[in-house]
């Protein structure tokens, strides 16, 4: 039961809290979704409510999608005090939603990228294993709180793929990149089961990645089926 309605709703998890075991524990899923993600949702809605109440040009932001808010974050007609909660809580709201969607119960997921994405990844990284190694390295190397991403950038017909990281709740959308895959490396994402062993968490996390979501997002960016 969550009082997280308003401009945006806390999305339901696409699977049960315990269904990512043994790689991600039920307790973490409960707290991560029902407390952390819910908190960001509430604060994001509160920030938008305040912007709407302040009137003026800024109020039209309230009808924008979170992705577009993050894309245009630095050029929105709002004050810095209004911008900061959008960056943190809007980012937190969207990032966690994507995080749930790129995972699935280990036996129900698609285990490899296919089609155009598969080709693009082979061309960029050499092999899926080489990509995973790079991605894990970046994820393990984030100092403090943040996220590791696979993003697409550049022309739709022939995008560049990159592994990047962002701090806190910053979004690749803000710097013109399109997220394809993401992992949360804030300590709250893994602390209860893995404590300080972030590399172990990242290794286990690969068993949860549902490449169908990643394929679909790549299709969305390139327009190709």
């Amino acid at each position: 039961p969550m009082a997280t309605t308003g401009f945006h709703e806390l999305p339901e998890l696409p699977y049960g809290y315990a269904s990512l075991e043994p790689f991600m524990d039920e307790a973490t899923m409960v707290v991560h979704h029902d407390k952390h993600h819910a908190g960001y949702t509430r604060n994001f809605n509160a920030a938008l409510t305040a912007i709407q109440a302040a009137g003026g040009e800024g109020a039209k932001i309230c009808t924008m999608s979170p992705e577009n808010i993050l894309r245009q974050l630095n050029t929105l007609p709002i004050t810095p005090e209004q911008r900061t909660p959008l960056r943190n809580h809007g980012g937190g709201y969207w990032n966690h939603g994507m995080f749930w969607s790129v995972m699935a119960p280990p036996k129900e997921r698609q285990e490899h990228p296919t089609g155009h994405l598969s080709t693009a990844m082979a061309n960029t990284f050499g092999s899926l294993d080489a990509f995973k190694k790079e991605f894990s390295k970046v994820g393990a190397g984030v100092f403090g709180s943040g996220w590791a991403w696979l993003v697409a950038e550049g022309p739709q017909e022939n995008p560049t793929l990159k592994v990047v990281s962002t701090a806190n709740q910053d979004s690749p959308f803000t710097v013109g990149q399109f997220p394809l895959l993401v992992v949360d490396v804030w300590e709250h994402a893994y602390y209860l089961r893995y404590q300080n062993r972030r590399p172990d968490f990242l290794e286990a996390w690969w068993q949860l990645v549902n490449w169908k979501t990643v394929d679909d997002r790549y299709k969305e960016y390139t327009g190709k089926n």
Partner: protein
Amino acid sequence: DIENQIYQIQPKMSPKLIILVIILSASSIARSFNYDCLGNEIEKYTLPNLDYELDALEPVECSVISKTMLEVHYNKHHAGYVNKLNILMKQLQEAMINRDLSKIVNLLQDIQFNGGSHINHSLYWKNMSPTKLGGGKLPDPSSKFYQHITAQWGNFQTLIQYITSRATGIKGSGWAWLAYQKESKQIVYEETLGQDTISMKGNLIPLLAIDVWEHAYYIDYKNLRPQYLKQIWDIIDWQEVEKRYLEAILQQLFCSKNYLLFQIRIRMKWN
């Protein structure tokens, strides 16, 4: 004439004191090298000893920091930083011997992180104490430190509330601090992100360190950082904070030559 005056107020040194000074200087010079001329390691960084047992910060009435939380934070996180630091420092030594500038530059970021973490955590353990050993007890109202705080902040409650509300708002991973500003001689609230040290922010001497990385409280409080920050005041060792404050002032009063002598006198009186 001025020289004469200074000569008058300089403490007279007995032969014993002279020898003590020589020994202290020699050992501090020796400690600044981690390896001898053959490149053998002499002294590694080590996890500082805790002044209390692992379960001492969970008094019967309420658990501020549980044994499990402390165990993981101290024996896994801090120990991990120390181990990594030692590996990096060894690599730095080799890179310096080989004059490999690229390697040196590459290592510095990780050393800043792991070394900063070692400094920060060492301060953190020391400024906490079980309630039965004085944790949570405010300093004596007649003390210089108490008076400085009340002169600047009104009272301790105001200060504590301010730190709590600011520290709650730190985004992501970082530290909340009380620090002594050397130029203004004020006691200020500061924040650092990641494992940045307080000295990286300017002419500041750390007085109180509070870790607000999620790993500092997650096992006991999950996402409820405000609860952790509310409870932690029960185990803050204000005597340690006061000691750091007094040392900061003393350091300013004396130039470094006399400071060493004053340190000796203070230590002999302190015990």
